[in-house]
């Protein structure tokens, strides 16, 4: 009991030292560590503690005698030797460091540790060239050309030699393939000008599968997913657990990038991963995910081909089948096969109720955008969700039933869809409030063209609709300037000819709308279009006119910001 108590004393004391160190009281922590070493000279925790707290106190010199005493007391202890070696280097005593490292190397001739410790200490002291020399000497002494590859790669990188770093990493991966993520992460930081050199270095000749994987991941990270996949794919051609893991990792990395090419590459990698996995749940789920990724990338044909594999897989578990069935219907809707999608929705028992409801909404939206308004309405017949109310609002709008649309949008409120959907509905409510009458089919048709992406015809139809309102005896309050402004906004985003027409439209709105809200909004759009056309001086003139003429307009803060941007006063981030 007495012995136990005596042994626990240093342990308690050193724990107190850690606490003091954590709270930033380095002086007090150092006193505890030194006291611990007086009682127990080889206490490695106390030595390491001193190694941490003495440098910020500018008292590193005090570490040397205690580290020497510890190493002398237990010469075979690698950790104690390491502390002493690092202390010599930090105190800039190169001869002592060399002597200790070489003595250590003689005692352990096949061990990398002496050279590694020595080099890392030099690297910490920012003496990169000396650290490199030590590692090269270690390679020669050990007779292993691949030794210290990772350390050499880091040193090359620190000195800006990115190709050297890539060469070292590629060589190091042969012995340590688990380092691939670290290699990709380190080389991924290469400056733009170095990237092509690295890619070529890794892919020239007949690269090893690991070099291909490294190059593929790097190219993916540098925004070249298709090229990355082309380089990567041969490395996962032969089935193995390792190849499957690599393919999955590549798919996950591609999933972090939101471009059509990256989505396609993710789909390809998932499909390959499924092929490399044993038949059953994992493969089926991967195929369902691959199909979704193909759909997101716009490749319905590839998506369907992958899904057929799931359907044929008798080992696929129910959740994977469900995912696949959902993806099949999604692919049908996206591919314009709405009849077939409708049949699947009506008859496919493997779809869950939630999937069926959301797919029905999706089908209704697709039908609406295709101009099949009756069919869209029929799809929604048995649904009373807030999403459905919002969609019914759009259907009513495209039919030209303005008051119904207004009522339905207000009923849906901000709760349906995401923020963008809610904003679109709010903008439409604002427009509808300016328009007279309950029904205006011509406007509904124009807005449907806009939703279908036929902007040229939509702009013309909106101008026509505005013109009819104006000639129908509408003054400023009839809403025609707001409609004309919408036409201008649509045209402003099109080709040069349409942009010229947009400029005329904005001019007309500014001249005709008086003090209504449409005039300053049109002038702001006018200025923005001029800026996009590089007519900056003219844009500035309009922005200044807007700010001075309509000081109470809600768009004045936006105009001021545009003015700053036009004058180059907003920093580029």
């Amino acid at each position: 009991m007495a012995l136990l108590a005596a042994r626990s004393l240093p342990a308690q004391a050193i724990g107190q030292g850690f606490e003091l160190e954590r709270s930033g009281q380095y002086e007090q922590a150092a006193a505890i560590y030194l006291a611990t070493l007086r009682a127990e000279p080889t206490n490695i925790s106390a030595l390491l503690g001193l190694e941490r707290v003495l440098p910020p106190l500018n008292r590193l010199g005090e570490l040397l005698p205690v580290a020497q005493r510890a190493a002398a007391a237990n010469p075979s202890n690698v950790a104690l030797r390491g502390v002493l070696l690092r202390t010599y280097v930090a105190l800039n005593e190169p001869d002592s460091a060399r002597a200790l490292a070489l003595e250590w190397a003689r005692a352990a001739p096949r061990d990398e540790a002496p050279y590694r410790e020595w080099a890392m200490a030099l690297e910490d002291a920012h003496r990169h060239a000396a650290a490199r020399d030590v590692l090269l000497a270690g390679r020669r002494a050990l007779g292993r050309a691949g030794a210290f590859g990772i350390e050499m790669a880091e040193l090359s990188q620190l000195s800006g030699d990115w190709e050297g770093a890539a060469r070292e990493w590629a060589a190091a991966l042969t012995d340590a393939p688990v380092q691939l993520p670290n290699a990709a992460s380190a080389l991924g930081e290469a400056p733009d000008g170095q990237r092509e050199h690295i890619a070529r270095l890794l892919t020239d000749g007949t690269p090893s599968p690991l070099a291909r994987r490294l190059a593929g991941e790097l190219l993916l990270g540098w925004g070249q997913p298709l090229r990355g996949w082309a380089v990567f794919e041969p490395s996962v051609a032969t089935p193995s657990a390792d190849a499957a893991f690599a393919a999955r990792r590549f798919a996950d990395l591609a999933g972090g990038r939101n471009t059509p090419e990256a989505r396609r590459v993710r789909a390809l990698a998932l499909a390959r991963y499924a092929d490399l996995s044993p038949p059953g749940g994992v493969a089926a789920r991967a195929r369902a995910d691959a199909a979704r990724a193909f759909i997101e990338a716009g490749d319905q044909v590839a998506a369907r081909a992958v899904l057929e594999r799931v359907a044929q897989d008798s080992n696929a578990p129910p959740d994977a089948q469900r995912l696949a069935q959902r993806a099949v219907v999604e692919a049908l809707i996206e591919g314009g096969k709405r009849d077939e999608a409708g049949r699947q929705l009506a008859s496919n028992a493997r779809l869950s109720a939630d999937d069926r409801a959301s797919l029905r909404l999706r089908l209704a939206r697709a039908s609406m955008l295709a101009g099949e308004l009756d069919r869209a309405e029929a799809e929604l017949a048995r649904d009373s969700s807030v999403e459905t109310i919002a969609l019914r609002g759009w259907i009513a709008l495209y039919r030209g039933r303005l008051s119904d649309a207004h009522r339905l949008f207000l009923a849906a409120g901000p709760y349906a869809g995401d923020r963008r959907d809610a904003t679109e509905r709010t903008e439409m409510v604002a427009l509808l409030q300016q328009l007279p009458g309950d029904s205006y089919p011509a406007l509904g048709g124009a807005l449907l063209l806009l939703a279908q992406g036929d902007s040229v015809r939509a702009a013309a139809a909106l101008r026509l609709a505005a013109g009819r309102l104006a000639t129908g005896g509408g003054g400023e309050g009839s809403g025609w300037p707001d409609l004309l402004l919408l036409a201008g906004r649509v045209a402003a985003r099109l080709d040069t000819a349409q942009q010229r027409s947009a400029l005329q439209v904005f001019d007309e709105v500014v001249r005709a709308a008086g003090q209504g809200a449409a005039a300053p909004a049109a002038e702001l759009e006018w200025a923005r279009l001029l800026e996009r056309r590089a007519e900056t001086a003219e844009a500035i003139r309009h922005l200044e006119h807007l700010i001075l003429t309509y000081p109470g307009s809600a768009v004045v803060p936006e105009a001021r910001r545009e003015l700053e941007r036009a004058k180059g006063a907003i920093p580029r981030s």
Partner: protein
Amino acid sequence: MKRREFVRSVGRTAALAVGADLLGLAPPLSSQLLIPMDESQSDHLKAYGVTYRVVQAGIKAEWLLNYRGGSFLLPDGPAIRRDAALVGVSVEPVEDARVTAIRGEIEASNMDAVPLEKAPKVAVYVPPNVPPWDDAVTMALQYAGIQFDKVWDFEVLGGKLAGYDWLHLHHEDFTGQFSKFYLIYAGQPWLAEMVRFNADAAKQLGAATVPDLKKAVARRIREYVGNGGFLFAMCTATETLDLALAAERVDIAAVFADGTPMDPQADAKLDWSKALAFTGAHVEPSPQIASFSDIDGHQVNAPARRQPLGAFKLFNFSAKIDPVPTLLVQNHRQVIPDFYGLTTSFLRTRLKPSDIVLADEEGAPWVKYINGNHGKGTWTFFGGHDPEDQQHQIGDPPTDLSLHPHSPGYRLILNNVLFPAAKKRELKT
């Protein structure tokens, strides 16, 4: 720019402005325009720009110290109204009777009216290559619309400072150790470029090393102040300028900067009589610690010494007796959140007795904002890097000041820009 040119420049859209008049939108002119600088102001920072441009056009303005947050009084005119409206600055037309009432209130309170009569010519010390950080003063000047020139070592040593009324220094390390960035950013292309660029400049300008070059530049800057210049420094420039001046004949640079280790007796050899603001500081002896000396109270990049941020409070000076410090602390907020820089604050124990403390953190051993005289000129040091980015990191996007139009920290910077415009005979201290 003269008055006629000002009117022309702000009247570029004359036709449209006339249009507004015809619509009956232009209000009738009053006697004067008050730019309030209290909470009612819609853009405090741009208000300085409006005032600067008025003074630049040769039109007299007044700075009403302590009156509604340090407001400006300008003559009324369509061009000035237009300028203020375009940039979103609130103005209040004031008739003669109200001006008289304002003057009465100023006379009876801790307030004063300082005429502004000459727009200072502004120079910002910045390397010609693009450093990967931003300079709060450059951003403030650009946002407010105040013109400035960029100068660097070639211009300073070439005697070009004499042509400027106001000089700003920011993130420069005048000890020539590249802000000790190699500790954190070794291998970064921008750091290699910075080292190469400075070494080339040293060679071209006949200095043996970069630290020698920066010391020579520091001495010229001190001469500039001695000859009547206004110096405003922030962040690292404050501390390292004084270290470079005190170390005229001492090697305080680590081996990586000049090829020789720092003089181990450096502390004892420093001549603080040559420095502007500080005295008795200890130079950091370790090249492994990202700190220059113990002048900075916060030591942001030395983890064992780093101190947390608090808030600093502006002093309330007597406007009629001490118009200079009063002018430098004009603000609509008296307590401002602190912000880090490589040099964040200044230890009280390292200040010269003649320094005027403009702002400090109550109960803390450091101060934030100081001012003093040297020869015929004046210097002001403000710790920290960016008042609206408390922990600015290299590579962070620049602060968009249109999102901070009421920034009290940036107001302090702009107070300094207008300071040299104040009529000198009115400044008693």
